[in-house]
């Protein structure tokens, strides 16, 4: 702000305040009332003395060129869940910025909101409607079948028929991720970095898109043990029986904290919470115990959380890129209903940089992790999970 502007703003504040005092004089009101009025006026004046913009050009609101409408419906987590709803919304935002399309969003508050939300998107003619999460499968599928000329996307789930057998739609694209590949590397790394010889993981709710992380992690630990003749143990998940620890939801951070404290008391020093924001509770518990590290999931926790100094690495799931790419394809007229499967190869999933732990990860271990990564990409090594897409 230039000094002339600042001076004008200040004068404006004085004028408003003086004006108010003048107007208060004749009618002597209660002190409290006038004080509040002054304060309110002051606050208003400070923010309200800018200059009016030039009155020209009927505000063309973005979206020039295309009349494409990209739409997205969240599950009950909402757009600020620091997890997949947020990533998906960011993907749409990127598409809006890069492609100049219009957007519409609907946040669901409960399961009964899914169908009406998807339907209101269809109603306003969305070219592409994305549903975030397996819970939206039915709503998206029904809308796709009823509107063959519109396109749909479904994140984290494929479509299935009434008996639960997976099916394909002509105008609905599932966007799924083989996160086991990346969490396999995380498991290997964790086992190699553990000083106590115990690592742990827990999930939010036992659903395939969560347990796939835990399966890969378990296999990674096993691989390390086999390679190095070690006996690093894993708490919180048994891949054989598909049983383990779950916090019960994706909201309750104190539950994540309690679970993590239990793991720490059982000697675990590296913990991977697969529970969205519940992981923040895990991180806060880990911070209280010297030497305990966290492996974040979905996004790079070093950047998305405040716990960068204890985050060893993150198992990333590039939802936002997948959303943006899917919309971009559709805008360019190249929509295909073939499922998008994020893998290490297409960088739909991956391991984040070590950031603060760059110097602490032994070179040997790091090169082994890179080697495994190459092996998975080349197909030499396959990571299997009952939840794999």
């Amino acid at each position, binding site marked *: 702000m230039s000094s002339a502007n600042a001076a004008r703003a200040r004068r404006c504040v004085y004028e408003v305040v003086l004006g108010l005092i003048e107007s208060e004089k004749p009618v002597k009101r209660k002190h409290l009332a006038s004080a509040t009025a002054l304060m309110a006026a002051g606050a208003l004046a400070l*923010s309200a003395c800018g200059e009016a913009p030039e009155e020209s050009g009927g505000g063309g609101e973005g979206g020039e060129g295309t009349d494409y409408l990209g739409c997205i419906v969240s599950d009950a987590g909402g757009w600020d869940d620091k997890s997949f709803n947020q990533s998906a919304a960011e993907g749409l935002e990127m598409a809006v910025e890069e492609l100049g399309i219009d957007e*519409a969003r609907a946040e669901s508050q409960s399961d009964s909101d899914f169908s009406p939300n998807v339907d209101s998107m269809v109603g306003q003619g969305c070219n592409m409607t994305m549903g975030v999460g397996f819970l939206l499968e039915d709503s998206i599928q029904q809308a796709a079948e009823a509107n063959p000329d519109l396109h749909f996307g479904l994140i984290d789930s494929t479509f299935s028929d009434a*008996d639960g057998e997976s099916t394909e739609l002509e105008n609905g694209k599932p966007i799924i991720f083989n996160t086991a590949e990346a969490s396999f590397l995380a498991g290997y790394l964790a086992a190699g970095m553990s000083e106590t010889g115990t690592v742990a993981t827990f999930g939010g709710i036992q659903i395939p898109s969560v347990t796939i992380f835990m399966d890969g992690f378990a296999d990674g630990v096993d691989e390390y043990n086999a390679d190095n003749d070690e006996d690093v143990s894993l708490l919180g998940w048994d891949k054989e029986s598909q049983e383990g620890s779950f916090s019960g939801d994706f909201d309750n951070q104190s539950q994540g904290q309690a679970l993590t404290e239990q793991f720490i008391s059982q000697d675990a020093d590296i913990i991977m919470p697969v529970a969205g924001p519940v992981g923040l509770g895990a991180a806060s518990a880990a911070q209280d115990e010297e030497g305990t590290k966290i492996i974040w999931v979905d996004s790079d926790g070093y950047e998305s959380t405040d716990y960068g100094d204890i985050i060893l690495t993150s198992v990333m799931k590039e939802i936002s890129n997948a959303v943006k790419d899917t919309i971009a394809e559709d805008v360019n007229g190249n929509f295909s209903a073939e499922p998008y499967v994020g893998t290490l190869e297409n960088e739909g999933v991956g391991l984040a940089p070590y950031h603060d732990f760059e110097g602490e990860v032994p070179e040997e271990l790091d090169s082994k992790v890179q080697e495994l990564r190459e092996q998975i990409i080349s197909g030499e090594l396959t990571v299997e999970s009952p939840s794999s897409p």
Partner: protein
Amino acid sequence: MSEKTATGQPVPAAPDKAAAPEPPAPTLLRDILSGSWMVSVLSIFVGLLAGAVLIAAADTNVQSTLGYFFSRPTDLLVSVWQTVSEAYLALFRGAVFDWEAQSFVRAVRPFTESLVASTPLILAGLGIALGFRSGLFNIGGQGQVILGAIFAGFIGYWLTLPLGLHMLLAIAAGIVGGAIWGGIAGALKARTGANEVIVTIMLNSIAGYLIAYLLKQEWFRQTGSANPQSRVVDESAALFPLLPEPFRLNAGFLVAVVATVLVWWLLERSTLGFEFRAVGENPHAARTAGISVGRVTLVAMMVAGALAGLAGAAQVLGTEQKLTMGIGGSLGFDAITVALLGRSRPVGTFLAGLLFGAFKAGGYTMQAQTGTPIDIILVVQSVIVLLIAAPPLVRAIFRLPAPVGKGAR
């Protein structure tokens, strides 16, 4: 005067209220019930006004024009007017009639969607209202809805029965499920004097974890996938649609209408309803008159639970068609606000359910088309209920005279 007010029990004040110039510290429940219809209407008005302020404040356009308010105030006023009117028009179009829709079906569909959204609210609201009238704060609508949904849903996809019979059995199962859950709280209160507020809240948690547990079990889900959702209910058990395909309106709404009439009859015309109300008005007097307060408490909680269970059944057999962990949504709590707005009268609850259903259905369109945060709807509803719970506040705002010489009807 009541001796039990410290425990939060809605024991009514002595009936000498009419003589006093100011109500002699009536209990909360009494105060809520004694408000006039005018207060309800004005509360809705103030609620919408509060919503308008928030809609304007949340809009980026309004925020930027506020930045230069003193150089060109008209910009702010125009943008506030545009934002608020657009949002509320979208709300109306989503709830009643959409004149901007591309087809006739889409234009009239919003009203049916309002009815769909109001069905469970009316049913669960009736359950809460019946509890209020019997002097019971039933906060357990949520758990009772979930139990009703579990029972009705499981019968709906597990059994194979002929058309019609299957549906009736599934509905009956929902009623039984809710009645059991309400009955537990009622029995504990009748036998041990346990506070029904606390017990029902605990039962809500138990129901929430129970459905989470059941949906993990393969025998219960009956699907091949590991996702925690059940199989779709059989066609023979589903509440039949009242209108063809794009409409979602189903027989659940008829159930809600019938339930409203039945609850009206029960409360206003039957002996049992008279006992409910007598215990609700004054349990001591009722006991003196020979009414078994414990039995009435138990039965009232069971009937209240049955109605909430019916709401769960209508959800799972009608609109949702399968069980998920979120099948109950926040129905049990929304139902409390519906019962309050309806002043715990069956017809009032029915109308309040319609209004909140319309808010719900309209909210989808408002959010999707104008980008207004959906939480605004919750604020509007909350302000309405807040004002209804405090009639003197509304009277103060609109300078209405206090009601004279009139206790709760």
